[in-house]
């Protein structure tokens, strides 16, 4: 670790905070249904979209109506993306001439992009045509992120509204988020990336003759436009197999810094926007403080573990001053690789600039823990906010139990129904992650997919199901996921992770919106100060760390001690 590295990390996080404030104002205006500075240009587009779609812009939906709209929209997205992949060999813009995608892989990829996971069981540059990348993958990078934020809007409305049956209109929220936030930010960011060296062309590949006279075929394409929304929408599906480690996706230190800013930006801005929406910025600050504790502690742990390096290689005669360089790029270094790995797993992005499979055991433990906690510091676009609000509800409930009062959060009483829904939204994860991991450990066909054996092999499996159920999409990428077993079960984990969590969340939104607001009294537990931050910390540790501790100790923790002992597998 060095001062330059920590300064770079601090500068990046400061830039996130500085940019998040104006973006949060924009998000808050859309939440409230107000015009934005782009409305003079975009209002006619909105009206045309709503007229063609038959959406009444003045009508709102109940939580159930909101949910069915979201589910129908996701289903249609799934079908169109599936069809596109199956037919890509018959469609234009396929310069390299790729074949149609096999049914199980097309299923996995469609689920992956519709649920904002972007788990990739394929290598982009050797599988997907430009048309599939643009019309399929790029589109769902926008739509799945907009859907996530719309669901967070519905939950926040549950708190801001009183005694009503509606939580907003999904079509309006999703459309306006895409038009006013995601698209303009992506256009700007795509140009910044091109200026920094990210290609944007419709060519498929370039033939070069190297200095030694060999032929080098360089894959290329419309990378910048996909890269921009990939980070801003916390999607993470790379144009290339190596994702943001590929020099065309992430050419240098500046692009790296800005990509990290981009993937943290909207999640952080959404929390600020939540503060504006509930009319109390202190509530948002308490949540952000708890998120920051986990994020910064995680960065420190990865940075320290990776700088310490791999003692097995040191013994062989490798200079340890640069740290663990296996699976890392020289231009990023340890500090910005640590921040990227923590940020991408603290959000539901899943883009990588370093291969997580090659991280040291403790360096890999941090992203794994972030995934197991559901990627909520600061979380995916929308998904982070609603995920963290669920934790906040559980935290006030625990506080209520301790003092023997009915818990309240933001003026809403948290009663049996709300608690049941909140618990449903979090308890589904251990079932999916531990269930599928255990099943895979027992299956020879699953174990054949491992790239590493010993405890690291278990880590590959655990990471895969943690990543997909949390809709993250990063991987211990040695695992060969393109098999029938993994395409199917990882696809199911993504579906359950998204929808089995969000349906209880939307039901919670409906239940809260129907309640009267109760004014705060002397007995109300304050949710805007350090005490609440501490409580959130405790609940997260108990809820997530302890329930996965046995699995983690058999994977990364035991591997750490074996590595110190010089044991290899």
């Amino acid at each position, binding site marked *: 670790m060095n001062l330059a590295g920590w*300064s770079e990390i601090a500068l990046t996080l400061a830039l996130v905070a500085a940019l998040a404030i104006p973006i949060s104002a924009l998000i808050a205006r859309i939440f409230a249904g107000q015009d934005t500075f782009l409305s003079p240009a975009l209002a006619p587009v909105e009206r045309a979209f709503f007229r063609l*779609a038959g959406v009444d812009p003045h009508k709102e939906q109940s939580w159930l109506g909101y949910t*069915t*709209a979201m589910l*129908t*929209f996701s289903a249609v997205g799934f079908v*169109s993306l599936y069809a596109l992949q199956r037919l890509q060999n018959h469609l234009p813009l396929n310069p390299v001439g790729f074949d149609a995608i096999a049914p199980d892989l097309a299923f996995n990829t469609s689920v992956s992009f519709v649920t904002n996971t972007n788990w990739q069981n394929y*290598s982009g*540059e*050797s599988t997907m045509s430009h048309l599939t990348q643009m019309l399929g993958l*790029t589109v769902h990078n926008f*739509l799945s992120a907009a859907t996530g934020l719309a669901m967070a809007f519905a939950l926040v409305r549950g708190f801001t509204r009183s005694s009503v049956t509606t939580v907003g209109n999904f079509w309006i929220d999703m459309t306006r988020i895409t038009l006013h936030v995601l*698209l303009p930010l*992506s*256009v700007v960011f*795509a140009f910044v990336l*091109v200026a920094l060296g990210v290609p*944007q*062309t419709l*060519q498929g590949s*370039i033939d*070069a*003759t*190297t*200095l*030694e006279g*060999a032929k*080098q075929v*360089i*894959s*290329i394409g419309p990378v910048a436009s996909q890269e921009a*929304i990939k980070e801003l929408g916390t999607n993470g599906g790379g144009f290339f*197999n*190596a994702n943001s*480690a590929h*020099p*065309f996706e992430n050419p240098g*230190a500046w692009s790296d*810094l800005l990509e990290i800013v981009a993937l943290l930006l909207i999640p952080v801005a959404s929390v600020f926007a939540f503060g504006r929406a509930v009319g109390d910025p202190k509530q948002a600050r308490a949540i952000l403080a708890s998120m920051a504790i986990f994020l910064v502690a995680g960065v420190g742990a990865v940075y320290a573990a990776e700088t310490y*390096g*791999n003692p*097995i*290689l040191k013994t062989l005669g*490798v*200079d340890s001053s*640069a*740290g663990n360089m*296996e*699976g890392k790029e*020289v231009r*990023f270094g340890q500090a910005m690789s640590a921040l990227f790995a923590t940020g991408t797993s603290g959000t539901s992005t899943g883009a990588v600039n370093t291969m997580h*499979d*090659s991280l*040291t055991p403790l360096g890999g433990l941090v992203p794994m823990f972030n995934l197991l906690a559901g990627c909520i510091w600061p979380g995916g676009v929308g998904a982070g906010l609603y995920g963290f609000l669920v934790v906040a509800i559980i935290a006030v409930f625990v506080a209520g139990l301790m003092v023997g009062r009915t818990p309240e959060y933001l003026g809403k009483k948290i009663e049996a129904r709300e608690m049941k829904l909140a618990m449903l939204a979090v308890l589904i994860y251990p079932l999916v992650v531990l269930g599928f991991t255990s099943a895979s450990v027992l299956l020879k066909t699953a174990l054949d997919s491992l*790239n*590493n054996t*010993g405890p*690291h092999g278990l880590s590959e499996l655990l990471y895969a199901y943690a990543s997909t159920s949390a809709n993250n999409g990063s991987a211990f990428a040695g695992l060969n996921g393109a098999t029938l077993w993994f395409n199917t079960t990882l696809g199911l984990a993504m579906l359950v992770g998204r929808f089995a969590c969000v349906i209880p969340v939307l039901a919670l939104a409906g239940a809260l919106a129907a309640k009267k607001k109760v004014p705060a009294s002397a007995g109300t537990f304050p949710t805007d100060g350090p005490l609440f931050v501490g409580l959130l910390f405790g609940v997260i540790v108990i809820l997530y760390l302890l329930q996965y501790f046995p699995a983690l100790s058999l994977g990364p923790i035991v591997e750490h001690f074996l*590595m110190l002992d010089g044991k290899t*597998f």
Partner: protein
Amino acid sequence: MLRDLRPAVVLVALFTLLTGLAYPLAVTGLAQFVATNQANGSLIWREGKVVGSALIGQSFASDRYFHGRPSATSAADPADASKTIDAPYNAAASAGSNLGPTSAKLAARVKADLAAWRAGGGVGQVPADAVTTSASGLDPDISPANALSQVARVAKARGFDAGDVRTLVEASTARRFLGVIGEPRVNVLELNLALDGLQQPRPSAAIKSDLEPK
């Protein structure tokens, strides 16, 4: 659900046109116009031919050139398409090794690369990046320590003065911006192009590189 079908289908279609077609094509059109070099892959030309991209590493085996990092990329085996063979710096299939820290394969590979580095004249502890594969398999850079450790070999193979080659390495080393942003590094392709230029009478005329000045 049926009531929702029309808005779902219409909005997926409209956003497909807007974000899937209009957005990438508009960015492509403008990028090709205002940043032609970057938008097309920051290619380097020499004598009318593309010799590579400034951003993408390439494989160097000769003693006359500085070597990049080991690369874990592979390619389909020409003899049997169902198998793959090692193909370092295959820029059509980026990949890392994904070997974990306790992998025996990793230790064996590092041991072999370390022996090769020693055979090439390396002494003492080897710089980590010289025996580890990058995340993409296409890392264009090496650390300054790695470059300096190869100076003697390259100078000997070319019959150059080691001091001249060392000066060239130092001139090719990119440093941290304001002492904070970025890592000290050497772009191997650019260094090797400059190295070829050392023996040519008019290197500036022979190398047409439209890179931005570093």
